[in-house]
């Protein structure tokens, strides 16, 4: 599924990723943990193609497709999704309009037919109900005036609607109370499938109680410095990142 090899990247001329190598096979959920400044968010932006995040060497492929040569929207069409740590507010664009445009753009890019309005609305209603999102909220401009928790739920709703093959969750747990965390985790777990994979970036172990990862990796100074099973997350929670930090 996702295969990253010896990835080096800079942001504003500063080296952030230093030879990161990681494989996430189909059907698995991997967690990346690490101290602040380790490069966790940089990894998610490099994989999704944000401007200003420059890959200086190394490779990243999704199902064999070279991600790094594609535009952000082309990567999305390949099934790559990022749940943003800080979801953007899009004034003037109702969430439903946005979701429909995104879904249809992806369907079109894959050579499929667009989803007609009634089918789209039915899907949106069902997914919103699963995530306990008031449907009327989807008529409001995307994320404008939404609380932190509502924004994160909207991210998971978008993920559920787009059903990506590979999802990256960047600190999706931050800003969530325990009830919202459970709802988000349920939405996330519903998407687990043998032909999909996910990467969960988090600072704390809390989210991993609800999203059981298959593997846990520690990112420090731009590379993976330790990997293990779910128990590694518990160890980190107890001992902290000190032994991995500078």
């Amino acid at each position, binding site marked *: 599924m996702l295969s990253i090899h010896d990835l080096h990247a800079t942001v504003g001329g500063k080296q952030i990723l230093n030879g990161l190598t990681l494989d996430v096979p189909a059907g698995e959920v991997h967690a990346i943990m690490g101290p602040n400044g380790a490069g966790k968010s940089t990894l998610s932006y490099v994989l999704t*193609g944000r401007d200003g995040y420059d890959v200086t060497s190394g490779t990243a492929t999704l199902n064999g497709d070279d991600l790094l040569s594609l535009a952000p929207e082309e*990567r999305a069409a390949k099934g790559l999704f990022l749940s943003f740590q800080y979801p*953007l507010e*899009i004034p003037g664009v109702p969430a439903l309009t*946005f979701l429909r445009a995104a879904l249809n753009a*992806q369907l079109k890019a894959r050579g499929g037919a667009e989803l007609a309005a009634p089918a789209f609305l039915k899907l949106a209603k069902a997914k919103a109900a699963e995530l306990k999102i008031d449907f009327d909220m989807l008529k409001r*401009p995307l994320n404008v005036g939404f609380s932190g928790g509502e924004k994160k739920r909207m991210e998971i709703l978008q993920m559920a609607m787009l059903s990506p093959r590979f999802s990256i969750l960047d600190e999706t747990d931050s800003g969530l109370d325990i009830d919202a965390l459970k709802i988000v985790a349920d939405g996330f777990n519903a998407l687990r499938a043998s032909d999909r994979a996910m990467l969960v970036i988090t600072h704390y172990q809390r989210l991993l109680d609800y999203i059981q990862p298959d593997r846990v990796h520690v990112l420090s100074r731009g590379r993976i410095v330790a990997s293990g099973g779910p128990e590694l997350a518990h160890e980190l929670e107890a001992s902290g990142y000190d032994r991995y930090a500078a």
Partner: protein
Amino acid sequence: MNLARAIETRDLAQLPSRRDEDWRWTDLAGQIRDLPPASPQGVAKSAGPFAALANETVTIVNGRGPGLIEISGKQIIALRFVSASEGTAHASKVAITMGEGADAVLLESHEGDAAGYLAHAGLSIDIAPGAKLERIVLVSDAEDAIGVSLAQVNLAPGASFAQTVLTAGARRQRIETRVAHPGGGASVRMDGAYLIGGRRHGDITTVVDHNGRDGTTDQLVKGMVRDQARAVFQGRIVVARGSDGTDARMRHQALIASDRAEVDAKPELLIFADDVQCAHGNTIGALDEQALFYIRQRGIPEAEARAMLTTAFIAEVVDRIGHVGARDVAAAWVAAHLESA
């Protein structure tokens, strides 16, 4: 100095030039070396953008048509200024009078059906006490045309005037509106939107003179320039001595979508009264790159993402249009101009 007089007298010296402070960004003298021949009679090619909405249509082709429109009661009038002949010049003059208590929508279109013309449209609008007018001005000049529209609006106390100008520019173009505001509970809304590309030039100039207590003016002008286009916004609100209780707000916001595009803005509040509420804001910037990336990450191609954000940006002006049909025409105009980007 004015284009109408230059066309009528065939005297180039009458053209406004960059030496005129109010015209320094929209120099006509430097653009017009010879006056083109006078426009012949012409015929409009289409029914105009508002044909389906109006219950009365006044059409002026190449400067010829009715010169007086009298409005009483409730009316929706389409007023069309059509330029139908290539490389010719014409000036039109129309007077609109509204009786007391009249309530009208004026759907004005400037339609360039030919190339390279020179057109001036002069309009005077008198709005009686308690009368209400909403004016939508959709300006679709030919790319190589020069067009000027100058409207003088005289408002009575208790009357209301709301305006929305929509323009895509021309070789040189100016849409100017001057309002004599008597206060006395009269209200003015002076909005505008511009979407200008290529090497076009569009100028929205407004002057509102508050001369009396308790009047309001609310102005929102937004626009986007791309390629090598240039937009000019000059908004002036004058609050004369003694015009206490005036509430005047002006906001201009522009997006620049290319390094070679330009926006010149001059918002002015000239306040000579003491007890007033006045505010103005002027911002010029680019689309939010973070928002663009967010939208593209969801699979929406860059051009579509830009159009989506620009549409949302302009929508604030479109949404303030009161007449529903005209609002739909305006929204479609925005979509069409972003699609061709």
